[in-house]
């Protein structure tokens, strides 16, 4: 009986405040939907088989975690408006003799209803939309979608649990405020302004410090593989830093503006500054939320759009020539003469097929990946596959004969037997490669060793290392066969050779996709026959650029689609916040504008005040988001290297374009929400 009363009171309260409750429930539903979609996509089947699948899943997972964290902040923010409103009512109930426990019960019912409504609706919409999203992804990237209306039970459970905890916290927060405030202060809470936080300057300094650390992290990351984790740390720091900075700076700004002489000169400034100061903390939190979402939209869209629109670039980088031929050789079949013979054969075969090879280049090489620490390269499986692998020390080593090096660079360098040249990129080793007594040893200090005569801070242009996610070191040896000796004994856990000498050759034939494919097949057949196998050519691999074009577009198109999808999710969240902010503040401000109209303010002045207020609210986050993006630029560029993407100017241009497009979309949202606000505010009955 009594329970029924509390439930009815709770429902009644929600109905009476439906103007505030509806947008709130909408916001909650939106967050649930988005969270579920991200969680669903991270585990969805359509991703299977996409290259970089694991990286995409990790990124989606991180995106989900960030959105989850974000929904906590956001819903606490929106809930604050509601609590303010409800506190007055609770104060009245308290006045009528209801004890605090009963107030708590009403609050509990209310929270429960809000939870059930928003999570129920959010999951329904989420299941529908996520299915659509998966179908789209499968279509573009060519993967397989799950069957009819697939539901991911894991994602469902996770969403339900996260939001259950969130609503519990919301309830406790509301309860804390109702429990520990006197009835009178509850009654007055709606008209009380916010007090500036204590130690505002300290908080501001802390926020700026966090931002600086995050920016430093973003700028200092060298290796894209270890960058993913650090990136997440930087994102968390940026979120925290943005919140603190914006809250404290909006408080400081309000104070400063109120002190300025022009404060009283213009009515627009007078009204907008005072109402911003009145809810300065909520204002700062709202701005920070929008800013973070704007950053996320810009980062996802600009990076995936760069990948997609740069597909041709990536293709050209990955396949410098139309045809590429790679042969794996036995160590004794890798001499200079054998190499010359392979080149001759290749040219002959190409001509027989009716083409003239152009821009042909060929070299021998052997590569291995290992951990480098002062002169010793550890390649044993135990070290390389260790769980706590330090990506920062992982390098790809390429052993190259001096003759091929000279041919590539046009130099006439000479080396004595046992000596070697070591080439590196300055970006990877600003102070040169650290060696012990000028020696580079493999496996252990007593293993195969090379005496490095010279280090060169440049890799030959003909060497295609793009697409290799770790830094490359080139070891030039005078005699390939001799250099390989000893290294051949390095083997992985199953006894396979780690250091496989090979011969590779690239050239153009200026012909279409089918001709390229036919030539590839012809070359593969030629080098895979019995005679070649017995003479030491153990494997043959051919690739053509045009055959790979479709799959490149498939992959990058899929990524772009995911990026756009994510951006829509983030954009929706941002629009929700803006809309909620405008609506709830509109209802709060409505009586105020009515009073000002009575005192003699014209509708035009009201409009000007609103525009002024919204302008600050809208363009501050956009500015800060652009700043975040500028600092995230290097780290994103390095992450893009994982996808064969290395074209900084193009990326910069695409990013700039994204900022412009986003600003336009943002401007439209701005107009719409400002109209919504204006209608609410000017709808005030003209009543003294």
């Amino acid at each position: 009986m009594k329970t029924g009363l509390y439930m009815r009171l709770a429902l009644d309260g929600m109905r009476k405040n439906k103007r505030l409750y509806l947008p709130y429930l909408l916001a909650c539903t939106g967050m649930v939907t988005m969270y579920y979609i991200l969680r669903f996509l991270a585990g969805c089947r359509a991703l299977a088989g996409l290259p970089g699948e694991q990286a995409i899943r990790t990124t989606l997972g991180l995106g989900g975690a960030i959105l989850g964290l974000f929904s906590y902040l956001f819903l606490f923010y929106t809930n604050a408006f509601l609590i303010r409103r409800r506190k007055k009512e609770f104060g009245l109930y308290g006045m009528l003799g209801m004890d605090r426990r009963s107030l708590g019960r009403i609050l509990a019912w209310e929270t429960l209803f809000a939870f059930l409504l928003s999570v129920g609706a959010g999951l329904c919409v989420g299941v529908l939309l996520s299915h659509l999203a998966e179908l789209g992804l499968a279509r573009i990237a060519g993967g397989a979608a799950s069957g009819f209306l697939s539901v991911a039970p894991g994602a469902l459970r996770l969403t339900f649990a996260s939001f259950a905890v969130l609503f519990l916290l919301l309830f406790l927060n509301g309860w804390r405020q109702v429990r520990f405030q006197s009835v009178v202060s509850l009654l007055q809470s709606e008209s009380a302004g916010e007090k500036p936080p204590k130690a505002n300057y300290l908080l501001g300094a802390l926020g700026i410090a966090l931002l600086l650390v995050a920016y430093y992290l973003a700028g200092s990351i060298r290796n894209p593989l270890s960058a993913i984790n650090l990136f997440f740390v930087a994102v968390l720091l940026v979120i925290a830093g943005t919140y603190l900075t914006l809250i404290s700076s909006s408080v400081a700004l309000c104070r400063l503006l109120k002190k300025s002489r022009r404060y009283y000169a213009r009515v627009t400034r007078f009204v907008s500054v005072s109402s911003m100061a009145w809810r300065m903390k909520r204002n700062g939190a709202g701005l920070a939320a929008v800013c973070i979402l704007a950053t996320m939209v810009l980062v996802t869209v600009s990076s995936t759009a760069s990948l997609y629109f740069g597909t041709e670039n990536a293709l050209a980088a990955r396949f410098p020539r139309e045809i590429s031929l790679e042969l794996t050789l036995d160590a004794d079949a890798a001499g200079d003469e054998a190499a010359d013979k392979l080149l001759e054969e290749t040219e002959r075969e190409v001509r027989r097929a009716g083409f003239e090879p152009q821009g042909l280049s060929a070299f021998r090489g052997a590569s291995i990946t290992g951990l480098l620490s002062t002169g010793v390269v550890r390649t044993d499986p135990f070290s390389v596959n260790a769980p706590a692998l330090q990506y920062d020390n992982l390098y790809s080593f390429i052993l190259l004969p001096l003759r091929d090096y000279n041919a590539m660079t046009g130099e006439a360098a000479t080396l004595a037997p046992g000596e070697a040249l070591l080439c590196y990129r300055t970006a990877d080793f600003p102070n040169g490669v650290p060696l012990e007594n000028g020696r580079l040893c493999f496996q252990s200090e007593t293993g195969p060793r090379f005496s490095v005569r010279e280090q060169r801070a440049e890799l030959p242009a003909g060497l295609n290392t793009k697409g290799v996610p770790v830094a490359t070191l080139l070891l030039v040896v005078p005699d390939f066969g001799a250099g390989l000796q000893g290294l051949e004994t390095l083997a992985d856990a199953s006894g396979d050779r780690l250091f496989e000498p090979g011969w590779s050759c690239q050239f153009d034939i200026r012909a279409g996709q089918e001709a390229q494919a036919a030539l590839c097949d012809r070359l593969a057949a030629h080098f895979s026959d019995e005679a070649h196998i017995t003479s030491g050519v153990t494997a043959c691999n051919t690739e053509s650029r045009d055959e790979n074009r479709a799959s490149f577009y498939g992959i990058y198109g899929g990524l772009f689609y995911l990026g756009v999808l994510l951006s829509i999710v983030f954009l929706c969240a941002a629009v929700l916040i803006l809309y909620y902010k405008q609506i709830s503040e509109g209802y709060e401000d409505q009586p105020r504008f009515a009073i000002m109209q009575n005192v003699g303010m014209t509708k035009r002045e009201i409009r000007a005040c609103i525009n002024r207020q919204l302008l600050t609210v809208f363009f501050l986050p956009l500015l800060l988001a652009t700043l975040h993006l500028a600092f995230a630029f290097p780290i994103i560029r390095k992450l893009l290297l994982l996808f064969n993407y290395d074209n900084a100017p193009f990326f910069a241009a695409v990013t700039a374009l994204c900022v412009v497009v986003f600003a336009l979309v943002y401007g439209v949202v701005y107009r719409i929400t400002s109209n919504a606000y204006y209608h609410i505010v000017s709808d005030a009955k003209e009543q003294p």
Partner: protein
Amino acid sequence: MHILEVTGLKKVYTTRFGGNRVEALRDVRFTVDSGEFVAVMGESGSGKTTLLHLLAGLDRPTAGRILLDGNDLSTIKDAALAAFRRERLGFVFQDFNLLDTLTVEDNVYLPLVLAGTARREQRALLEPLAKRLGISDLLQKYPYEISGGQKQRVAVARAVITGPKLILADEPTGALDSRASDELLRLFAELHAQGQTILMVTHSIKAASTASRVLFIRDGAVFHQLYRGGDTNEQFYQKISETLTLLATGGDGR
């Protein structure tokens, strides 16, 4: 000189779906001279508040004419009406209508800021006024931090700071306790003594007894009026009270 001249004022409200027509004001005519302190009395629903809204230009009459300081309100456009209100009228409301977001000081400044008055002039106007109304110590506080009586004094300060021709007060003592009411009425009397024209709507006999003239409204028309003449507040109170009894028992003036 008439500062306010109302003739044949009529206001008909139509309910939302056009059903019932409610005649709030039937035919109101009266004048207010410069320097008068007029109280308008009547029962709830007699049309007092409607009258005030029409006088303030917050609502348009169905028929009739309002001449305020020589200007016909019906000929002034909406945008100009706001400025007109700002310059010629001051308002004091029952529930104060102060802005939560502004300090007491800024609340008082609001009409001046709206009018674009220079900062120095704003200050020069506020200081003596604050002293006179006893709100000098409250200036930096926010409305929710001060008492009802104090809020109403702030509202009076906001109403008079522009030097309006006419102050319109709507039940100004309605939300105050008797001490705060007395204080406010003393303040009004003081303003009146300095030559301020005031029109106050009230149903408090006590409040009305401080005025120089009382208009009684019944069924949407001015039913009767009383001049103070040389009466003291107590004598005038007695007369008003008797008139109201007459009104309530259905004595007919028509």
